[in-house]
């Protein structure tokens, strides 16, 4: 496949504006500015582009919710928090091709009528933030940001807002709280951000990868975009492969690439030619799949049909020697650590789940612990303020579904079933 999002990944000068333009950059935004806003929104709707941040919400549809009234201030926020364990795709774009993201943001801002945009980048990405700031400075110098960009009537400022270590700030309303200088705790929805977001103004939040798809859609059109991947989940997709594969890393492939193709072709199979035991298809909030699911196409709907989710496209591969109770412990410890504390079922529930998993992991498991955890899950699921708590439950239930006997073994034998 012709690379779209990673087309500049092997060009070490692509982060400089002149090189980016030599490789064809900043042509799409000029084209976009010559079009009407509604026409652009319709284009993105027709392309079928779905959000790459996790939920797969149609990007054009989200943009269309923003009120048209030109007297109201509007904002675009780029979600570069990239906190879902296993995920490292947005970093790949920002470190190597920051102007691609800026160009996508310019087009999106123009389409929704935003004159100010923020990039919410996780604080640990110091290198990426420096690259982005340098790219923003270059764009201002050329007159591509600021007042009346590219000689049009459209003005845009882009600022970086650095996160400071809080997974929950990837949730879009917690992200807005954080930009407002508050603790990152989710807001009640509705109202949705498209109507009342940052400082109460209409705001679109899109993921880095989503926004980075935009320039190519404007340049090459809807038919080209839809020629990749399935009808309802088209386009290129970044897959972050980690764990027990021979060649872990960032891969750009069409949506709908099968797990088998990704793991055994592109990533060279499992280390030591061991057997694949389990695989998380979309970051740790996504329930695990097994070797029986290898022919599942990696797109939003196909993975959902298997009871899991494509999420952020973080594919975590586990070989036959992996202890699943240990994976569950590490995963739940993460959720408990990152629970923002706003609602009790999540704050208390993930804490207790982690305590039970810890004692199982360290050989102190008690008979009935699996049932106890199932009860805890019931008390969390559907009762939390935001999806973090549900994600923790879904991940654990996924582990129980396929590997329940391994938990029982760990409890009765006080050690792993494997190795």
């Amino acid at each position, binding site marked *: 496949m012709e690379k779209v999002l990673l087309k500049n990944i092997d060009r070490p000068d692509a982060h400089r504006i002149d090189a980016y333009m030599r490789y064809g950059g900043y042509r799409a935004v000029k084209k976009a500015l010559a079009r009407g806003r509604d026409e652009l929104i319709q284009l993105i709707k027709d392309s079928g582009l779905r959000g790459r941040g996790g939920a797969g919400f149609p990007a054009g549809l989200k943009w269309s919710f923003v009120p048209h009234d030109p007297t109201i*201030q509007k904002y675009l926020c780029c979600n570069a928090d*990239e*906190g*879902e*364990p*296993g*995920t*490292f795709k*947005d*970093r790949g774009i920002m470190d190597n091709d920051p102007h691609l993201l800026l160009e996508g943001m310019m087009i999106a801002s123009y389409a929704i009528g935003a004159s*100010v945009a923020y990039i919410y980048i*996780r*604080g*640990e*990405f*110091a*290198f990426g933030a420096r690259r982005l700031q340098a790219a923003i400075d270059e764009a201002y110098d050329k007159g591509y940001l600021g007042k009346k960009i590219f000689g049009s009537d459209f003005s845009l400022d882009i*600022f970086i*807002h*650095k*996160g*400071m*270590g*809080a*997974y929950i700030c990837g949730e879009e309303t917690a992200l807005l709280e*954080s*930009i*407002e*200088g*508050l*603790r*990152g705790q989710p807001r009640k929805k509705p109202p949705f951000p498209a109507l009342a977001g940052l*400082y109460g103004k209409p705001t679109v939040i899109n993921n880095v990868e989503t926004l980075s798809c935009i320039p190519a859609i404007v340049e090459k059109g809807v038919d080209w975009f839809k020629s990749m991947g399935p009808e309802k989940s088209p386009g290129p997709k970044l897959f*972050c*492969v*980690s*764990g*027990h594969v021979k060649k*872990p*890393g*960032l891969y750009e492939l069409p949506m709908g690439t099968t797990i088998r193709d990704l793991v055994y072709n592109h990533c060279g199979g499992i280390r030591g030619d061991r057997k694949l035991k389990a695989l*998380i298809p979309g970051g*740790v909030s996504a329930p695990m799949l097994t070797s029986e699911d290898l022919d599942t196409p990696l797109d939003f709907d196909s993975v959902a049909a298997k009871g899991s989710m494509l999420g952020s496209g*973080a594919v*975590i591969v*586990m070989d036959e020697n*992996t202890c699943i109770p*240990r*994976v569950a412990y*590490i*995963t739940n410890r*993460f959720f408990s*650590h*990152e629970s923002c504390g706003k609602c009790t079922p999540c704050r208390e529930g993930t804490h207790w789940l982690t305590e039970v998993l810890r004692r199982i992991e360290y050989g102190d498991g008690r008979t009935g612990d699996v049932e106890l955890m199932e009860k805890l899950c019931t008390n969390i699921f559907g009762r939390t303020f935001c999806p973090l708590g549900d994600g923790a439950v879904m991940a654990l239930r996924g582990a129980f579904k396929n590997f329940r006997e391994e938990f029982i073994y760990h409890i009765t034998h006080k050690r792993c079933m494997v190795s």
Partner: protein
Amino acid sequence: MITEEIRQEIQKRLKKYANEKSAVMDALRIVQRAGGGNITKADMEEIARIVGVNPVAVNAVAAFYTMYNYGKPVGRYHIQVCRNISCALLDAERIIEHLEKRLKMRTGETTRDSRFTLSTVECLGSCGTAPMMQINDDYYENLTPERVDEILDGLE
């Protein structure tokens, strides 16, 4: 101590936002960096004045976000090893044990000379090059115990 230079740096950040309160996070980060990784109570009161919020609000932000070291001072080199799933699958445990042995300290501690603090952290978004760690701003990836020794030897 917030010098005139830092104050000006913070004041520049106020302009990024429709509401200056938003600059609390930037301000805390700038002050922490200038303070060698630490923030004091007096710093927070000063930030509150510059940004125009209640000191309680500054405190709440400093306490919520894990990258602020308020109340938990760190050494000159803050070593943070990822303990999350992709790193754990590739034996991050071995890296942590090696660091504890070499630095003669436990995770969560700071050496007596304040040179090193060793912490474990959740996923740092570098899972394809696991196991990994961060020392101050920089990422170190595809770690082995030998590689860790080289890296530590290379720090002045």
